[in-house]
């Protein structure tokens, strides 16, 4: 038997735990330091998969008639940038680009890493383009009761009621990190507890 084997195993275990704790602390630090942005959202459904209960989020926005919707579908993994600008208390989609500068060039104030896809949706008698943002934030983990309550509130929202928002933090690296959600005017933040 190798004499220092137990010591080596213990050292490896400690290193791995420190790495995991480091990731959590770094992510929380980046979340706290980033610029807070509100993005309109829809809930898809709460699921009970291996990862537990969560509300699946879709960050969709209806575009103005004059605003072009990018025809090419891009994803968060493709490494593109999305330009956003503030309007009416939240952030609106401006355009998409291969670089941060390209995303900011169309009058955007903030650039976030991600991709978009467009869909044509009927609103009463009229149709409009809806852009969905893929910024790597697609779920909000919560316990079962909380997840179902949020999902129910989102589904029962009537027209004219306060819209729902995902509260995200956009860091210096351009990555979006979820901070919480606002549904029915009530904000639910991610906490240590």
């Amino acid at each position: 038997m190798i004499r220092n084997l137990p010591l080596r195993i213990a050292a490896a275990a400690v290193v791995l735990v420190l790495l995991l704790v480091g990731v959590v602390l770094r992510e929380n630090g980046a979340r706290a330091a980033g610029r807070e942005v509100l993005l309109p959202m829809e809930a898809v459904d709460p699921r009970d998969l291996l990862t537990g209960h969560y509300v699946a989020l879709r960050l969709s926005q209806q575009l103005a008639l004059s605003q072009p919707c990018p025809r090419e579908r891009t994803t968060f993994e493709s490494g593109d940038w999305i330009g956003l600008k503030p309007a009416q208390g939240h952030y609106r989609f401006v355009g998409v680009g291969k670089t941060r500068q390209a995303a900011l060039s169309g009058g955007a104030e903030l650039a976030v890493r991600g991709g978009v896809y467009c869909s044509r949706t009927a609103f009463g008698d009229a149709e409009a383009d809806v852009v969905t943002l893929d910024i790597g934030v697609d779920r909000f983990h919560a316990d079962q009761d909380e997840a179902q309550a949020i999902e129910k509130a989102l589904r029962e929202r009537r027209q004219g009621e306060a819209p729902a928002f995902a509260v995200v933090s956009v860091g210096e690296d351009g990555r979006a990190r979820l901070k919480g959600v606002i549904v029915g005017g009530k904000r639910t933040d991610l906490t240590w507890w």
Partner: protein
Amino acid sequence: MGEGPADGEAEARMASYKARLTKDLDEWIAAGLVPAAHRGAILDRVSDGRRIDASAALAVIGGLLLGAAAIAFVAANWGAIPRLPRFGLMVGLFLAMAGGGAWAARVGRPLLSNTLLAVAALVYAAAIGLTGQIFDIAGDPQRALRSAGLAAALLTIAGRSSAAGVVALALFGFGEFAGRFDGGESRWLIFAAPVGMGLAWLWNSKPLAHASALALIVGLVAAIAQFERWGATSLLASAAVLALLAGRARQLGERRTALIFLLWFVWGALVFYGVAGFDEFKGGALIAHRAAWLIISGAVIALGMHDRQGMVTAAGVVSMIAAVCTILFDLGLGLMTAAGLFAVCALIALIAGGLTRRRIKA
């Protein structure tokens, strides 16, 4: 497993050797070659293989059930447990497994240490996923799987754990398939597999030898998928690499790990060679591929029979059947002709199987 140089393997061999010796001894006594009075003394010189007693088996089963009960309890109350204690639970479970592995290594229980470190590697992989869920940290599944694979690799090296090595290779393997498989992604398994093979050789570990040889084949597939435009060329090159490795493994002799490598590489080389000829070859190149396929298959059958390696012979027979079927398909023969040729192939396979079995018995 990392039982030290051939400990477990030697014991298993010893047990089967004793059974064979008992049978032979009885025949020699009946033939008057050995005095019956020496039977007991001769058999006493050969030890029985290691056996797990009932109490140890029950303790292991009890431990596993206790673990399952604890996991079920935590899962049932997962939502009710605050985030930080949830994270603490996972870290605690990982430390308990790794600590158990360290303790087992200290008291000279290599098998237990090996197993606990593999469980620790799996718990850490789960911890990476659950940490993302607990703190809503968005992440790339491929990166998560590769990070878990690296953690398992660290435990493999630190704890000399072949079982953790198998976990590491499996995680790297899943990492290759997570996300887009055929695009310009990076490849890890093709580099991890040779390291695993080296460790399997050093530690004389059968499970790691199987896992790393398979990982090399899967790694080659992943690498080929990345450079799709090379098509048949890369498949033929992979077949050649595996054939060379099989030749090298054969040269290394009777060592069990070398035989395991030989078997996997022969099968892998034949599969790559066969698949290489499905799409791109036309005319003379196609005929050359098919002819070489038949010759190679025949050579592998001969090699398997010469070396008394049943699985090598089986690979050659299966390859021969696949080659004949492919040629039939190329020729566009009628169903009756095909049925007749399939029957002939089946007969060849049965005869080869019978001969191999007779040789093994002899």
